[in-house]
C-alpha cells in the first residue's frame, strides 16, 4: 500500500483519542464495550478493504470525477453534498472538542474566541493549499511528532500508577452483548480511509491488498483502541472513570515525568495531540471543501483568474464553527457527537451503494 494511505488512516486512529471515542467506550464499560470494540475493528477493516478495492478499479480518479462520469446529475450532487456535510462535521467535532479542551486545561483565562481564531487561521488556510500538499504536510508532521507520540503512549502504559488489575476487571465484561454506540465509535477509528474519495487522484498505482497490510491495519487499530479504552481504566480505576468528561487528559495528568523538563505528562499530551488534531481537521475540511466545490460547481466562481471557491469555503466553514464553538455546551457536543457516530453505518451504507452504482455503470 502507498505510505500516504497509511498516514491518512493512522492520523484518524490517533486523533480519536481526543474526540469523544474514549468517553463513549468508557460509558458503555459494563454494557459490552469490549466485544463492540472487536466487532468495530472487524467492520472497520471490512470497510477499508471494500473502499480500497473499489478505488483500485479506478486508479488516479477521485470520487467527484467518477460520480460526474457515471451517474446522473441529481444523484451525484446529492451524494456529494451529503458527503461534504459528513466530512465537515467530522472535522468540526475535533475542532470544537479541542477548543474546549484547550480552554479547560491549557489556557483557562483566554477568551474562547481567541482560541478558536488561533486554530481557524491555520486550519482554514489548509483549504487554500493544493491537495497534494496536504499529503506532504501530513508526512512531515508525522515524522516530527511520531517519536513524541510513541514516547507518550509508552509512558502512559509503563508508569507507576497503571494498575493491571483494573484492566482485568474491565476484561471481565467480555461476555456481554455488544453495544451499538461503542461499536460505531470503534468503527470511527477507520474513518481515515474514506478520504480516498479526495486523495485517490494521487494514488496512480494499484494499491496492493494482501494479508500483510490488512494485518498491520488490524493490529494497529486494535492496539490503538485498546490503549484508548484500557489506559484510562488502568490508571483511573474501573468504577469511577466514567465520571470524567475528558478521561484521557485527566489520565495523562496523573502521570509524572520525574526527570523531564516538562514534569506533567498532560502538557505533552495536549501539545502533541494538538498537532495531530490540526492535521485531522485539515484533512477533513480540505476534503469537505473539494466535495462542496465539485457539488456546487464552484470552479466557475472566479475573479481575475483566481479561484475564489476555497476562500468561500474557508469563510463558510470558519463561520459555522464559530457559531458551534460559541453556542454548544460540552454536554451538547458530546451527545451530538454520539448521534454522529451512531449515524456512521448509514454513511458507510450510502458509500457502499455509491460504489456499487459506479461499478455497475462503469462495467457497462
Amino acid at each position, binding site marked *: 500500500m502507498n505510505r500516504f494511505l497509511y498516514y491518512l488512516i493512522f492520523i484518524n486512529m490517533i486523533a480519536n483519542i481526543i474526540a469523544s471515542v474514549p468517553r463513549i467506550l468508557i460509558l458503555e464499560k459494563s454494557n459490552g464495550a469490549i466485544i463492540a470494540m472487536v466487532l468495530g475493528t472487524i467492520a472497520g477493516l471490512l470497510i477499508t478493504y471494500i473502499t480500497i478495492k473499489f478505488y483500485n478499479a479506478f486508479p488516479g480518479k477521485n470520487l467527484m470525477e467518477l460520480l460526474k462520469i457515471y451517474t446522473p446529475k441529481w444523484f451525484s450532487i446529492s451524494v456529494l453534498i451529503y458527503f461534504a456535510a459528513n466530512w465537515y462535521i467530522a472535522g468540526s467535532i475535533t475542532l470544537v472538542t479541542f477548543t474546549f479542551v484547550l480552554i479547560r486545561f491549557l489556557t483557562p483565562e483566554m477568551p474562547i474566541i481567541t482560541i478558536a481564531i488561533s486554530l481557524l487561521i491555520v486550519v482554514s*488556510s489548509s483549504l487554500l493549499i493544493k491537495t*497534494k500538499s496536504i499529503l*506532504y504536510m501530513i*508526512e*512531515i508532521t508525522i515524522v516530527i511528532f511520531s517519536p513524541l507520540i510513541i514516547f507518550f503512549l509508552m509512558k502512559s502504559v509503563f508508569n507507576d500508577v497503571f494498575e493491571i488489575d483494573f484492566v482485568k476487571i474491565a476484561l471481565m465484561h467480555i461476555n456481554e452483548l455488544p453495544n451499538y454506540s461503542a461499536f460505531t465509535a470503534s468503527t470511527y477509528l477507520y474513518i481515515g480511509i474514506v478520504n480516498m474519495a479526495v486523495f485517490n487522484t494521487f494514488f496512480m498505482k494499484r494499491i496492493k491488498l494482501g494479508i500483510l497490510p490488512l494485518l498491520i491495519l488490524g493490529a494497529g487499530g486494535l492496539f490503538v483502541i485498546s490503549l484508548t479504552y484500557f489506559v484510562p481504566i488502568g490508571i483511573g480505576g474501573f468504577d469511577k472513570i466514567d465520571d470524567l468528561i475528558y478521561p484521557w487528559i485527566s489520565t495523562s495528568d496523573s502521570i509524572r515525568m520525574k526527570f523531564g523538563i516538562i514534569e*506533567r505528562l498532560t502538557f505533552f499530551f495536549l501539545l502533541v495531540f494538538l498537532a495531530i488534531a490540526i492535521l485531522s481537521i485539515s484533512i477533513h475540511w480540505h476534503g469537505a471543501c473539494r466535495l462542496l466545490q465539485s457539488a456546487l460547481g464552484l470552479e466557475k466562481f472566479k475573479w481575475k483568474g483566481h479561484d475564489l471557491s476555497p476562500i468561500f469555503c474557508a469563510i463558510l466553514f470558519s463561520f459555522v464553527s464559530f457559531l458551534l464553538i460559541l453556542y454548544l455546551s460540552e454536554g451538547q457536543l458530546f451527545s451530538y457527537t454520539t448521534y454522529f457516530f451512531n449515524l456512521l453505518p448509514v454513511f458507510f451504507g450510502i458509500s457502499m451503494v455509491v460504489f456499487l452504482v459506479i461499478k455497475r455503470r462503469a462495467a457497462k
Partner: protein
Amino acid sequence: MKGMSSLNPQSDNQIPHLFARLLNKLQVAGDTIHTPIEIDEENAQLLFIKSVIDGNQLQNTIIKPFFELASEKRFLQYLDSLPNKIEIVDEETLLVELTRGMLLINVQQRYVLIDIKKVNTDSVQITSLEPTIYGPQGGLSESLETNINLLRQRYAEPSLAVEITTLTDRSKSVLAILYDKEVVDTEVLDTVRKRLGQLNNPLIQSTADLELYLNQEKFALFPSTLLTERPDRIVYNLAGGKVIIMLDGSPQVTMAPAVFFDFMVSMDDHYHNFWTSISTTFLRYAGLFTCTVLPALYVAIISYNPDVIRTELALTVAGSRIGVPYPSYIEVIFMLVFIELLTEASIRLPKAVSATATTVGGLILGTAVVEAALASNIMIIVVSLVAISTFVIPINEMSFSVRATRFFLLLYATLFGLAGVIIGFVGIIMYLANKESFGKPYLKFYWKNRSEEIKGGLKK
C-alpha cells in the same frame, strides 16, 4: 539598415561606411580607437575599444602577422583561419560585441571580427560563504569561461550540456545553463528556459538578482533556488540532475530546483564518517528547530503557562525575571531585534571595525542590559542560543529566511500562548509543504530514490 546587405563596404573613401556609422555611435566612448595599419600599398583598418581588449594579443596575433605577411590577401586568409573569429550578425550586435572586447578589421573590403578581449576577473576566489573543513577551498571566479572550465575539470562527462545565451537587459550579460543531459529533469529544464525567456527586468547584475526574478513569486519568504559558490556542491547537484544557471561576472551560481533539505546540507557531510555526519546533521536540525521555536516558547511559557515546565525551573526563570518591568514578549522582541541589529551590523561593517561591534554589542551591552534589569539572565541565554543556532544553517539564504520565520512564530505565541506555538509551527510546515520550486514540491521526504518517487507513487 540592419542586415547583411548594409554591411557591404564602400572602400573608395578613406573611412568605410560601416566604420563611420559605428564610430558615430561610439563617440561617447572616449577610448574607442580607429586606426589604419599600412605597409607599402597594403593596408587594413582596425576598430576597437582600448580598455576591453588585450594589447598583447592585438600586437601578437594581428599587427605582427600583418607586417610579416605584407599582403592583404594573405592577411585576410590568415584572419579567416583564426579560431577566435566571430560571425558578424548585424550592426546592433556588432556594437555590443565591440563594447565587450572584440576587434573589427576591415581588409580588402571585408570585415572580420576577432575576439581578443581582456578578462581581469578570472582568478579563482577562496570560498567565503560556505567554508568547510575538508574538501576544496577554492570557489568560483567572476568569469564565466573560467567557471565552466572549473566545472568541466571536476565533471568530465561528455553528457554535460552547456547552453550559452545572452540576457536581454542592459547588462547584456552572458548566461550559461549547465546540466547533465542523461539525468536532468526535462520538465525543470523547460521551466528554466521558459522563465529565462520571460525575463524583462531592466538590469540584472548578479546571480542572486537573477534568482529573485526567476522565482516568479512576489511575496516569497524562502528561496526556491539554491545559490552556491562551491564547485563541489555544484558538481554534486549536477550529478543529481539539477540545472545550473551561471551568469558572467558572478562568483556564485544558482541551481534549480531546490528543496528545503538541500539548504540543510553542508558539503562536509559527504567528507565525514557515517556517524559523524549523521550527528552533525542532527545537530543542525536541532539548531534549526531551536532558532525558530525557542523565542516563541519562552514567551508562551513565561506569560501563559509557567506550570508546563518543572517547578524548580519555573522558579529559576521567575527569579531571573525579578525587576524586569514589562511582559515577556516585549523583552523577547527587544532582545531579538537587538541581536538582529548586531548580526546585520557585523555583516555591513568593514572587517576592521566589526570586531568592535561584536564586543560592544555582545559583551558590554549584554551584561549592562541584565544589570539594568531590562532583560532577564535567562533571556540573554535564550537570545544567544537562538543567534548561534541560526549560524548553524549551512546556506546563508535559508538562515535569513529562518530569521524572519521566527518572528511570525513569536507573534503567534504572543497572541495565542503555548497552543499557538504548536499551531503556528504546523502552519509553517503547511506553508512549506505547499511551496514549489520549479514545479517540484519544496518540503517533501524522498524515501525511495527520487526518480522512482516522482514517476511512480504520485501523479505529477
